[in-house]
């Protein structure tokens, strides 16, 4: 349904078209979104815990975590508020490498990512492994600012960006696909930008 008088829109560069999911627009800046105040987490206080249900499997301090293999990942990211940003450069620890360090095969098909501010988001295991996702520690080669989720945030670039939990402090394997914070508040359980899965009732 064409909107009367709307024609001049700011179209993406033609070579970028194929990289912009439906309903998204290209953003040069890096907007910030979150449900509450920005927690300032000091690296001295930071830790990351891997859990299976309620049971902790392994816990890393900041120093221990930084000793894990670092991987670079440059990806397009897509926020549900409709901006897409090309080529964001991250470095961090692949979820594969975290599991390897813990000597763990994924015990279930689902996870909940946990953050220092109590935020949670659910991500299926198949979207975290095989090089698809990491716990990011650096953005553009520098420590991630607290605004953008530092010291460490999850990076699952192929899903809407609310899945890339900021201020990450743990990953928990769950038996079922358990909705997290935004998923309980009207947002889609999976969140694939290419299928425009923004809200709960999107197919």
């Amino acid at each position: 349904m064409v909107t009367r008088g709307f024609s001049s829109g700011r179209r993406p560069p033609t070579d970028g078209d194929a990289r912009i999911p439906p309903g998204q627009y290209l953003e040069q800046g890096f907007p910030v979104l979150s449900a509450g105040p920005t927690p300032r987490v000091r690296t001295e206080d930071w830790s990351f815990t891997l859990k299976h249900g309620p049971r902790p499997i392994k816990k890393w301090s900041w120093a221990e975590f930084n000793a894990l293999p670092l991987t670079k990942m440059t990806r397009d990211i897509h926020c549900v508020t409709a901006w897409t940003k090309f080529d964001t450069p991250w470095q961090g620890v692949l979820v594969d490498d975290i599991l390897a360090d813990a000597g763990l095969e994924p015990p279930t098909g689902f996870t909940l990512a946990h953050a220092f501010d109590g935020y949670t988001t659910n991500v299926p295991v198949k979207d975290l492994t095989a090089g698809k996702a990491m716990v990011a520690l650096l953005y553009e080669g520098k420590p991630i600012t607290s605004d953008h989720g530092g010291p460490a945030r999850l990076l699952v670039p192929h899903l809407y960006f609310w899945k890339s939990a900021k201020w990450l402090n743990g990953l928990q394997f769950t038996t079922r696909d358990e909705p997290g914070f935004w998923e309980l508040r009207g947002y889609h359980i999976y969140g694939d930008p290419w299928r425009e899965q923004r809200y709960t009732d999107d197919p």
Partner: protein
Amino acid sequence: MSDAAAVQSPWQMAKIVRIEKRTPRVTSFFFQPSRPFAYRAGQHVDVRLTAPDGYQARRSYSIASAPESGGVIELAIEKLDDGEVSPFFHEVAAIGDEIELRGPLGGHFVWPEDENGPLVLVGGGSGVVPLMSMVRHRAAQNSSVPVVLVFSARVWDEVIFRDELITLDDRQHGFDLVLTLTREAARRPADYSRRVDVAMMAQAMVRLPEPPGLAFVCGSNAFVSAAAQALIDAGVAAENIRTERYGV
């Protein structure tokens, strides 16, 4: 956990039935949705514009009206000169136009029906919009929940909904308005002329009979970060602060 209730938000056409200039840069557009549209104070809609070649632009706008205001929903849109969607509304959209919208959306930044503690609302510029819905909802419900709204604007003439807010403030029914102007002197005795800070938050909370149960903060990212930090420094627990950020 009731937040997920009743998410039914297909795209629908909504007709612009009224347009009202609020400030030099903010205009309200009143939409008549084609399907029943029940929402909670604080929620937003997504708006989608489609060009003849199929190109679409999509943005979120908070609802300014109260759920009690009948079928028509009010969006108050600030014009960003170099923006894509907001100038369309200001320069092109007219009464009778049909616009595609979807909602209501958002289940976190909403008036807490079950909460009895006082509320602190903090808005910067057009960030006052979802807070206005809450304030109007409170008035429509004759609610006795004490509310203080701290509203930061650049100048007096950019105070959106100014007359309506001052009228509600004057009623002294447990709603208190604190205006702060960042580029002009204060006009009312208890108002401020500076950016929000911890002292202002602490003084605002003194107007409440007891410490707030929740705080809602909305505006640009920079505003929300500063105001949320000021609330924390004034003693509000971080988990009781809900934010809505309009982006950069």
